[in-house]
Structure formats: structure tokens, C-alpha cells
């Protein structure tokens, strides 16, 4: 379905890695401020769908429309620029630069966009405060707990004020208490700033933080909003 007012629309995406098809005609759409869970068994192509939507991976065929632009026809540099400016990312693990302090990690996307260090770190601090990790600002990622690290990552994903936040199993490495706190803060912050969230997860309780879910199975995505 491609309802009017969608921020990001993908139609009939195909992507094959080697001989393994990952996506075989997947559709997707999301509105500003909407939180959509992408669910499905492992290996179903959830992450590939996210990578295609975010312009990290170019689909073999199909189109990804973002805010009136066709992502698949943009150059690598243009897509990188888009990711820097308009998208945010949270992954399961291994995403913070170990040698930078937490606040420097959060400020990194802003700095990549050319924001000056002072300002970038000030804005980063504000976001860290919101995600309740202001106290670890000057520690290195190796020195903070998993839940804190993930919240630092969420702060980093939101610091540029992205219009779409892509979260790939953001709580995968956390226990349920920490995971839920992260999801709560993430969705709350996203809703407030009208950021659309594409949330890839295999956990129903994480998916329950979404507004609706899309199920990926056998490389196809099924929007469950209209089902009933």
C-alpha cells in the first residue's frame, strides 16, 4: 500500500546475495512520526529490507522513494549524504567507536556533517541527558554497561534530528529491563520529534512499541495494518 503522505515508500524490492535471494518483491511504506516494526523469522530478509530502505544497499530492482527522491538512482555519495543528514541508525552491537568518549561518539554524526566540535558536543550532551546517560559522557564505550552503551547509540542516532530512524535489533544484546527502557526512550523521543522509526526486531515485546508491524517472510513484506 502506498498511502498519500508517506515519507518513505519502497515497492517490489528484489535483492540477491550470491545465489541467496534476500528480498523478492518486498513493499513498504512509513509516515512521518510513525513507528513500524519489521518482523519475521531470522534469515527472512528483515535486515536487507532495512539496508535497502536506508540506501546502504542498492536493491537489484524495485524503487525506494524518500521524500520525493528515488534513492536507487542516487550516487553513493548522495546516498551517504542523505544518511548523514536525514537518517539515523541504531544497531545491535559494535557500533560505538571504542576510542572516542561517549559524548564524542554522539557528536560524531554532527561533526561528519560539518558542525563545529563545541556545538556538536553541546547538542550531544543534551541528547545524552534525555536518554539518561549524561553521567557517562566522558567515559569510553568500553567503560559503560551494555544498556548505557545502547542508549548512547540511540542518542547518537537522534542527534542530527533525522526524519527516519533505522533500528536493527536495537535491544538484541540487552536484558528485557534495559531493552524496554531503551525502547521507551527511543520511541518517546522519536514521536516527539516526528521521526519515523523502522524497527527491525524478532521480539514481539519490542515490536509492541510500534504503531504497526510489517512481517517479512520469504523475501516478501506483508503490512499487517489492514489485516482483520
Amino acid at each position, binding site marked *: 500500500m502506498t498511502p498519500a503522505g508517506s515519507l518513505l515508500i519502497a515497492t517490489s524490492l528484489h535483492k540477491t*546475495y550470491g545465489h541467496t535471494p534476500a528480498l523478492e518483491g518486498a513493499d513498504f511504506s512509513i509516515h512521518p512520526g510513525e513507528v513500524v516494526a519489521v518482523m519475521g523469522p*531470522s*534469515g527472512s530478509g528483515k*535486515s*536487507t529490507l532495512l*539496508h535497502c530502505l*536506508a540506501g*546502504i*544497499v542498492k536493491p537489484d530492482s524495485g524503487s525506494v522513494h524518500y521524500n520525493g527522491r528515488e534513492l536507487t538512482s542516487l550516487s553513493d*555519495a548522495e546516498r*551517504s*549524504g*542523505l*544518511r*548523514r*543528514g536525514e*537518517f*539515523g*541508525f541504531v*544497531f*545491535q*552491537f*559494535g*557500533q*560505538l*567507536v*571504542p*576510542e*572516542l*568518549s561517549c559524548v*564524542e561518539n554522539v557528536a*560524531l*554524526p554532527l*561533526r*561528519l556533517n560539518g558542525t563545529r*566540535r563545541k556545538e556538536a558536543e553541546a547538542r550531544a550532551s543534551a541528547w545524552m541527558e534525555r536518554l539518561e546517560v549524561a553521567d557517562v559522557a566522558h*567515559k*569510553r*564505550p*568500553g*567503560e*559503560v*554497561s*551494555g544498556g548505557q*552503551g*545502547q542508549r548512547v*547509540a540511540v542518542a547518537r*542516532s537522534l542527534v542530527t534530528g533525522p526524519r527516519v530512524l*533505522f533500528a*536493527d535489533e536495537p535491544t538484541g*544484546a540487552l536484558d528485557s529491563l534495559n531493552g524496554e527502557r531503551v525502547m521507551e526512550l527511543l520511541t518517546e523521543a522519536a514521536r516527539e520529534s516526528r521521526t519515523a522509526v523502522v524497527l527491525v526486531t524478532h521480539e514481539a515485546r519490542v515490536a509492541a512499541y510500534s504503531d504497526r508491524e510489517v512481517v517479512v517472510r520469504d523475501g516478501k513484506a506483508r503490512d499487517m495494518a489492514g489485516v482483520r
Partner: protein
Amino acid sequence: MSGHDAISGQDAPAEEPRPRVSVARWAADLAMGARFAVTGGRESWARTIMTAVGVGLGVALLLLASSVPTAYALRGERSDARAALGFQEDPKPGPDTIRLGQASTTYRDQDIDGLVMAPDGDSPPKPPGISHIPGPGQMWVSPALKKLLDSDDGELLRERFPYRTIGTISHDGLSGPSDLRYYAGLSHKTFDRGIADYRIDRWGTKNAGKPNPLDPALLLLIIVGCVVLLLPVVIFIATAARFGGERRDRRLAALRLVGADTHMTRRIAAGESLFGSLLGLAVGTALFLLGREIIGGVEVWGVSFFSSDIVPSTPLALAVAVAVPASAVIVTLVALRGIAIEPLGVVRNAAPKRRRLWWRLLLPLLGLALLLPLAGGFGSGSAGGDRKAYQAAAGAVLLLIGVTALLPWVVEAVVERFGGRGSVPWQLATRRLQLSSGTASRAVSGITVAVAGAIAIQMLFATVQDQNTERTGQDPHRAQLMANVPVADGAQARDAFARYRATKGVRDVLGVTEDYVSDVHRDKDDPSTYPEESLTVADCTSLREVIRITSCENGDVFLVDSPSYYGEGAGFAKPGAQVNLSFDDEGEPDLSRKKLWTIPASATKVKPRQDPTGGERTGIFATPGAFDVADLPDPRAVAMIRLDTSVPDATEYVRNASAVLSPTMDVMRLSSTSQSEEFTVIRKALFIGATATLLLIGASMIVTTLEQLRERKRLLSVLVAFGTRRTTLSWSVLWQTAIPVVLGLALSIAGGLALGVMLLKMVGQPLAVDWTGLATMTGVGGGVILLVTLVSLPPLWRMMRPEGLRTE
């Protein structure tokens, strides 16, 4: 991000009371480590191979270095055995004597050693390497010379040797494979025609095998040189032993989980290292054997070695075989000291101990303290030379090692100051260095020694070289070649000049023929002798080159006073004076059989002029019209030759022409300055050595950089996901390499200058900094930075592909 992987604040584990570990336990753990090195899957194989290749490169170099003494000794023995030294008193001709003439020549830029010979009897001594003395017109050649003669390049050279090749000189008679050498037979008749000859009754020198005590200054240079070239190799081996350490640590953590204690893990790690370095020893031996074969065919700086000469000295080879594995184990254990391998992961000590400065400063200061008292008092002749040499060497070594030890501290101290300012790549690089500056400093420390040492020795040589580069006074614009033609009489000299004039490539020949004349009256001061003057006969054109004359016609005679002996006008050579041309066998004026010539009254006094060879002539100068050159009884002919530069190989044509005149005659090339060739060679060697070390270090930096990149494949993909530009990460890799290298170079320039100043003071030379040398070394250092970055970029970009994000 893995929370428990590196939680800080945790202290290193309390040392458990050390249980008494049996040898068997040790052996079992070491063996287990060795097994892990092989069976730990692709990763540990990769690590083992990296270590083995790294250690192997180092070992090969060490073995090569340890072969140098043997190679030189073997080479020296053969050179000594074939020496044909003439003595003050030639042995009387007999059945066991041989008549020799030095017939060495030069072809293009290659020196060819040659002897012409004629046996006096039936049992002449023969030089090593040939089966019999060549008969007249026959010659033995070295394989290298044979190859040259047979090649197209040797066409011109073939004309120079009017002999038939009867065989090649065997291994015994050669210093090395590229030795250019020949033995040619001549008849006694040919010898008699003005060939400088001497006799020997045996080959070889008496002091063969008896080493001369080394000049202390030379010893100093050799020791410092060894440290400069070998210390980086040792450092490289130490670095190689650490390759892949982080992965290994994680594997050890898994062992802790199943119950290994701290000591066990250390022993297992040691075993793994030991295995890698033993493999490296094997690789190194193989590389050495391979390198030996290659070196066997290569001529470096005019020196070549037979592969069979390159044999490591046994004690040195044993030392390498023991020290390398031992140091690998020690390095591993030292590296493990700073971390605690816990069952759940590797814990790096949260606040790594700040590097201490005092002992790092102590080393170079101690070195300086040893060197300072030697200032100005270091000469081969001074007393206590040996002790001073050792003191100097120890001082230099301490200074160099001290500079290396200072580096990690300096890198740490400087990097700490950066504090996260600057652009994103700069921030990434500096933060990375702050987290672990040790790896970077270790790799760079090799550079420091090599460059510091090279700079210091460079300075010493530059000064010495300056003094050895003298203006020769020769003027290559007026003539390019000079030949002293041995002639029996003036007529031969005339013929020789004519022959040169007819030679291809010769534009002009200035020929002078000279002989001595004596006064007819005894010397007033020393009545036992007659004063002598030289008489030079040459045509007007040639005379203009040696004396200042404005007009000259055939038949003119000129006089030049030699002021040093007689003062102005004090000589006996005056217009109208009689001079004696007759000399006896001893070379004394022979007035009893005097042959007189009267200097014409028209002879004019003139001033001397520097000739193209830089010499000034005095005495009587006569044109052929005034004096018949054939009347000179024992003349020497000097031909100064102007070449037609458009003719290639003009020099060789002249040399060929000379060889026809006499095989023992050499032709000298004139040049305005002369530079001692050895210094040029050593300079080059230093640069090559330092560059090679820098490259070696570059290689280990590439390995560590790639390793680090591979470790963070996932992180790189994440950075790409949120839009990081390639250039950003590329720059950070560049900075990460550049910062330690630049610091290392800066430190080594400081250390090198300090050591250089000390060395110069010791030999009492004025201070002079060799700026070009400095610039070159800095340039090479910059090149290494670029190289490491460039080699790292393709893998970096490959790892920046989004595929790294896929977890399944």
C-alpha cells in the same frame, strides 16, 4: 559493543600463590600453545604465518649479517693468496722466479685487474686458480671477464687484449663472482720493450690470516653501524611476535573459561609464540639460503661474494637461533603483563601505568656522559685507543637505544595533549593513539634507531668527505685524459703521440717529452752533486698549455725558473749555458761520458702555467726545431688528450691505443675534484640500509593497521551506514600512521644530531649538518607514511562495504 568485554575499574587479578610448576607441566602447556598455533583455525594460522614471515625476514637479515665476517675473511684469504707483491729487492732471476707487470686497466667504469707474466725458468710459481702459466700470447680470464669479453658490450675491450683465452680462472683465484681479472703471458722480449716489471718467487703475502688490529675509529663506526642496522631488525622481530595478539588474547580468555589458570594461559601464549618464532627461524633460514644464492650473483659497490662464501659464523648463528625464539617468548610474556585474561574476556588495565620518564632519559644521558669526555681526544694514535673505542661504542649504543626508549613516552605525552580537538579524522586518529599508543610507538621505534644512526654517521662522513674532496687542480676542459707513456727514447715518444692523434675519438693530443739535464759544474752548496733541471720538448701548441708564452715558433727555447730551489734567476739553465744530457745507470749525472747541449742565447724567460693535470713545470722548454727529441736518452712522454665528446667510448679507444703501446700503461681520467670513493659508497649504503629499515617498519605498520581494520570491520560498516565518507576514514588512517612516524622522525633527528655532534667533536672536526641527508631521511619517512596509508586504503574501502553489517 560488548559490555563485559572490557569493563574498566577492575584490577588485574590478584596473583594467585604461584604453585610449583613442574617442567612437565611447562612442556605440556607450551606444547598446547604450539598446537593452538596450528589447529586454532584460519585465524590462528594466519597469525602464525604472519609471525613466521615477520620473524623469518628478521632472521634472514641477522644470518646475513652474521655471515659478513666469514665472507670477508674467505674473500680476504683468497685475495691474499694471489697477491703478487714486489719488494724493494727483486729476487734474482732463476728457475723458480717469474717476471710480472701490473697490467690493470679500466673499461668504461669497471676496473679490471691484470698481470702480464713471463716465467724465468721451468718451475715458476703459479697464482691460485690456474693450472699453468700462460705462454706468450695466451691468457687466463675470470668468468666475469670472459662473460664481458664474449658479450656485445665487450667488443671494444676485446681489442685491448691481443691474447688467446686458454681458460677461466677457477674459484680459488677469485675474490668473488664478479671479479674481473686476467693473467696474460708475454715474451721476455716484449717485457724488455719498456714494461715496468718486477720479479717474485712466490704468490701470496706473508701476513695472510694475521688480522690487523682494527683502527679504533673504524671499530667505532662498525659497532655503531651494526647497532643502527640490526636494532631495527630486532625491534621488527619483537613487533612480529605480537602480530594478531588481540585475537589470541580472546582465544586465551575462552581457555580461562574452561579452567586454565593465569599462569597456564601465559605459558600457552608463550608456546604459541615459540612455535611461530621457530617456524620463523625455519623461514628465515630458507630466506637466507635463497638470498645467498641471489647475492652470489650480485655485485654491490664493486664487491661481490660467492654464495659459498656466505656462511654465518657458528657462534653468531647459534646466538640467533637461541635469541630469536627466546625474545619472542619474552616479548609475549611482557605484552601479557599489562592485561588480565579473564574467563569472560580480556581486561586491559583500565588506567595503564603512565610510562615513566626517568629511566628512558637516563639511557641517552648516560650515553652522552660516556661520549662527552672523549670530545677532541679520539684519534687512532691517542693512548688507550681500545678502551676509548669501547667507551665510544657503548655511549653511541646507549644514546641510540635511549632515543628508542624515549619514543613511547614522547608519543604518549604528545598524543595526550591533543585532547579530541581538530577535525573528525584527526580526532579518530588521536583518540585511537591515546587508547593504545604502544603498538604504534613500538613499530616506529625501529625507525628512530635507523634514522638517528644514519644521520649521525652521515654527519661524520659528510665532514670527512668534505675534507677529502679536494680541488685536484686538474682542468678537464683543457684535456680529458692523461697517459704516461713508457718510452725507450724520444723517437718512441713521437711515435706514441702520433698514434694517439690517429686514434678514433681523439680531437687533439698535447704531447710533452721530458728528461733531466744536469749542470756541468758541481753544486756550490753540495759539491758531491750536480744540480739538475728538467728539459721538456714539445711543439708550440703543447707548450702553450704548460708555460705562459705569447709567441712561439718552431726553434724557440724558453726557460722557467723553479723558485723553490734556486730563487729568482739562480738556476744554471741560462741562455747560452751548457747542460749535460748523460746519466749513468744509477741515474746520477755522468760527466765522464758527458753529452752536452748549449741553451741558445735566444732563449727567453717565461712564467709557468698550470697544465691540465694541475702540475707546474719548470726548467728548459724546447721546441722540436731547437732540440731533437730523439736525442733524449731516457725520456718520459706525457700525453694529454682532448676527446671528441661526440664519439661514444672515445676513452676506450684511447685505452686500446695505450694497450698497444704497453700493456702496463694506464690512462688517467682528469676531473676537477676527487672524492674518495669509499665515502660515497658508505653514504649510499647508509641510505639504502636506513631506507630498507624504514620499509621493513612500514611493512609491520601495514600488518598492524590491517589487523586493526579487520578487527573493526563491523564498526566500519556501521560508520558507513550513518554516512561517513571514505575520505574521512582514509584521513584518519593517514594521521594514525603519520603522528607516530613524524614524532619518531623528529626524535631521531634530535638524537641523530646529538650523536653526530658528539662523533664530530670526538674526531675533532668542525660541526656541519648534512641538510640534504636530513631532508632525504625525512622524505623517506614521509614516503613510508604514504605507503602504509596507500596499502591500507583498498582493504579499508573493501571493509567499508555494507556487507559487513550482515550478521547472519
